[in-house]
C-alpha cells in the first residue's frame, strides 16, 4: 500500500500565530493555507492512509462528501512537492 501521505522532508508545515493559519515553509518562501487545506495537511502524518484521512475529516465535518476535494488537494500537494507517499 503506498497511499500513506507524509510531509516531504524538504518542506515544513506549521501553524503561524501571526498569520492565523497553517503555512508551508520552504527555502526563502511561505504559502498560507486555507482552513480546509490546513485540516488535510495536518493529517498527513505518515501513519494514516488517504482513506483514513477522508473518514476522519468526514467525521469532523459531517454531512459533506469530501472525497474528491481531499484527493484533489493531495494531488496538488504532491505536485508541489509538499507531501510524498510512503514507499
Amino acid at each position, binding site marked *: 500500500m503506498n497511499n500513506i501521505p507524509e510531509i516531504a522532508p*524538504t518542506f*515544513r508545515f506549521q501553524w503561524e500565530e*501571526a*498569520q492565523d493559519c497553517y503555512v508551508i*515553509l*520552504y*527555502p*526563502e*518562501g*511561505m504559502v498560507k493555507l486555507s482552513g480546509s487545506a490546513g485540516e488535510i495537511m495536518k493529517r498527513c502524518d505518515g501513519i494514516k492512509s488517504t482513506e483514513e484521512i477522508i473518514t476522519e475529516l468526514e467525521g469532523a465535518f459531517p454531512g459533506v462528501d469530501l472525497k474528491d476535494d481531499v484527493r484533489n488537494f493531495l494531488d496538488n500537494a504532491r505536485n508541489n512537492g509538499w507531501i510524498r507517499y510512503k514507499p
Partner: protein
Amino acid sequence: MAGSDTNRSQPLWLLAELTYRCPLQCPYCSNPVEIAKYNDELSTEDWIRVLQQARKMGATQLGFSGGEPLVRRDLEELIAEARRLGYYTNLITSGVGMDADRVKKFKEAGLDHIQISFQASNEELNNYLGGTKSFRHKQEMARVVKEFEYPMVLNIVLHRKNVDQIRDILDMTVDLNADYVELASTQYYGWSRVNIDQLLPTREQLARAEVVAKEYQEKMKDRMKIIYVIPDYFENRPKACMNGWGAIFLTIAPDGSALPCHAAAQLPGLEFPNVRDHSIDHIWNDSDAFNKYRGFDWMQEPCRSCPEKEKDFGGCRCQAYMLTGDATNADPVCDKSPHHGQLHADVDRIGSLSGTKEFESKPLVFRNMRNSKDIMSDRTIPA
C-alpha cells in the same frame, strides 16, 4: 493615504548578517564597501533578543548570512534558538568553514535549509573570483548537504566573466542534485558597483544565456527549480525592490544597525536605528528610517502620478540614489525616468568596450578588508 495600510505590515523576512568577515573576496559582493568599519559585532545575547522580538512581530523566514556566517562560533546556538522560536531558518554560505560534522550539528540544532554559493563551474575561475582555493570543498559540502536531506539551493552570481559558462554551471547543479538554483545577476551596488566595468554582461551574452536557462528550466522542471533573472539595467521597468520599503524585509547588519534592505546603508540623510538601543517593534513601526519611503507620499514625478506605483513602488531607492543622486527619484531602470537614457548609454559604453584588451585587463578590486580601508580613506584603489 500612505501609511495606514503599510503601518500594519509585518517584518516577515529577517536577514541576520552575522558578520562581514569572510574567507572569500568576491569582487561582486553586495556587502557595503565599508566592511572594515563593522568590527564591533553583536553578541550572542543581542542576536537572541533580536530573534525573539522579530518572531513576536510575525517574522517567519530567517536568513543567517554575512560575510560568511560560519565564521561565527555561536552559529549552532543561534540556529537552535531560531528553531525553538519556530523560524524557518536559511543558512546562506560559501561553504568555506563547513565540514560534515558541522552540517550534522546544524541538523540537530534544527536548521531547515542550506544555500551554497559557487563562483563558477570550473575550479580555476571559481578560485580566482573567490580569491581562495574553495571549489572542491564547495562541491564536497554540497554532497554532504544532500546526504543530510536538506533542501539545497545553489546560488551562482552571473556576470560577464562567467555568464558564457551557464551551460556548464547548470550541468554542475544537476550533478550536485540541487533542489533550487538561483542564477542571480549581479546587482550593481556595494563591491560590484566598483567593478561594474569588468562585470556587466553584454546584451549578446545575456541573449545567449537566456536561451540556455529556459532550456534547463523546461528540461529539469520536475526535479529542480531554476530561478533566472536578467540584470535590471537591461530592463524598462524596475523591480519591486524589497516588495516596498519597510514592507516585509528587515536586515540587521553585524554592528546591529537595522536596515529595510541590505544595501540601504549607503543612503545619505538616514539614521539607521540600532538594536542595541531600540526594540524591533520601535525600529519597525516608529523609526524615521523605516517610515521614510513607506507608502507613496515621498515620491516625486513621474512616480507620484504613475498608475504602476503600487506594483513596483518606484523601484530601488539605492539605485535611484546611486544613479541620480536623489533617492526619491524614480529608479532609472524605468523608461519613464528622465535618467533612463543615461543609464542605457552607460550600459552601451561598457558593452562596446568589453572584449577589447585594455579594458578586460583592468584588474578587479577584490572584496577584502584592505581594499575596504583603501576605498574609505579615498586612496586610489591598488591597481
